[in-house]
């Protein structure tokens, strides 16, 4: 039997660079004014996980985001790392959508493609970190889900994913079509190359509106979003007892940590 090329879709979201966002000490709101945008960190790992499968198997990788046009350079960046095509779902009507209409819209676009085998998403985003969208998409397209995965392989219609759980690693094997959500820092994303970047810019980006994926405008947007963000609070600041430990005092420090139960010494 001849295996047809796999179709892998990677979902990305453009987020403000977390290292440049801070909580305003007076108003307690997030100050993003100095922040530049980046690809959500976990999504870089999701793209890498997909590209690693493409390295092994004949596969086509599509990156996709639902966002305003400012996301275009970030889709370009994904193509410059090895993705074959990029889709931007852009429509004024989606503004203000929470994870429900976001998942619904993304799922509709995947359905329109028709031939998708594996969808890769980040475990969560760095700006609102609900972790809903991957599982939501799985639900809407009727696919199996492997969440919190750190390594993904594909063989003969099955996806094997190493899932990192609180008390260990679980390996699951699920049939395609499948959705996997990928852990932040679970791999080292490859870098873009100039050759691929030039090719990406020549190919350009595919833009779909809601009409293109048959989603009525009143299914999305703020009014069709059940979530209401009522309040945002920073973590209460705990001033820690800072103590400087000189080199000679390290054994004493270890003793104290053992006594207070933070660490345990085991005999070899």
């Amino acid at each position, binding site marked *: 039997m001849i295996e047809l090329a796999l179709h892998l879709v990677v979902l990305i979201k453009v987020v403000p660079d977390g290292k*440049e966002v801070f909580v305003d000490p007076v108003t307690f709101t997030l100050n993003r004014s*100095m922040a530049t945008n980046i690809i959500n960190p976990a999504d870089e790992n999701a793209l890498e996980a997909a590209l690693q499968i493409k390295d092994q198997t004949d596969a086509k990788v599509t990156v996709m985001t639902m966002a305003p046009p400012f996301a275009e350079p970030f889709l370009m960046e994904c193509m410059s790392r090895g993705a074959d095509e990029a889709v931007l779902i852009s429509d004024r009507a989606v503004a203000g959508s929470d994870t429900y209409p976001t998942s619904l819209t993304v799922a509709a676009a995947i359905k329109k493609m028709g031939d998708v085998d594996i969808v890769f998403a980040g475990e969560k985003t760095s700006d609102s970190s609900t972790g809903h969208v991957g599982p939501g998409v799985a639900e809407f397209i009727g696919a199996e889900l492997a969440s919190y995965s750190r390594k993904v392989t594909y063989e003969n219609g099955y996806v094997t994913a190493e899932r990192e759980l609180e008390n260990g690693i679980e390996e699951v094997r699920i049939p395609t079509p499948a959705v996997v959500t990928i852990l932040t820092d679970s791999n080292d994303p490859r*870098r873009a190359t100039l050759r691929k970047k030039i090719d990406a810019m020549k190919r350009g980006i595919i833009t779909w509106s809601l009409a293109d994926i048959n989603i009525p405008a009143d299914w999305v947007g703020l009014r069709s979003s059940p979530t209401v963000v009522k309040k945002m609070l920073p973590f209460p600041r705990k001033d820690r007892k800072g103590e400087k430990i000189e080199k000679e005092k390290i054994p004493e420090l270890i003793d104290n940590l053992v006594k207070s139960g933070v660490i345990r010494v085991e005999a070899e």
Partner: protein
Amino acid sequence: MKLEDRLALLNYKIDRTYAHITVKPDICETCPDHFCTFSCPAKCYTLIDGKLNFKYEDCVECGTCVVACAHGSVSWTNSKGAHGVKYKYG
């Protein structure tokens, strides 16, 4: 303000797979001046127990250490695209 606090203000995209600067430990071993420890504005070069310790993670890519080291120990390359320090004012 301590240098460490000033450096902590910076945003880096650290490249976990590529060190853009490397030193040759055998040359540093016999170095008479350790001038790099004085010239590097990001304190990437420090002496620990008399031995040179170099860490590239704090590097702000000023490029001066390759000139500062008069003993040919420093190999300097550009950071790979989009990695390293990211200033917001400049």
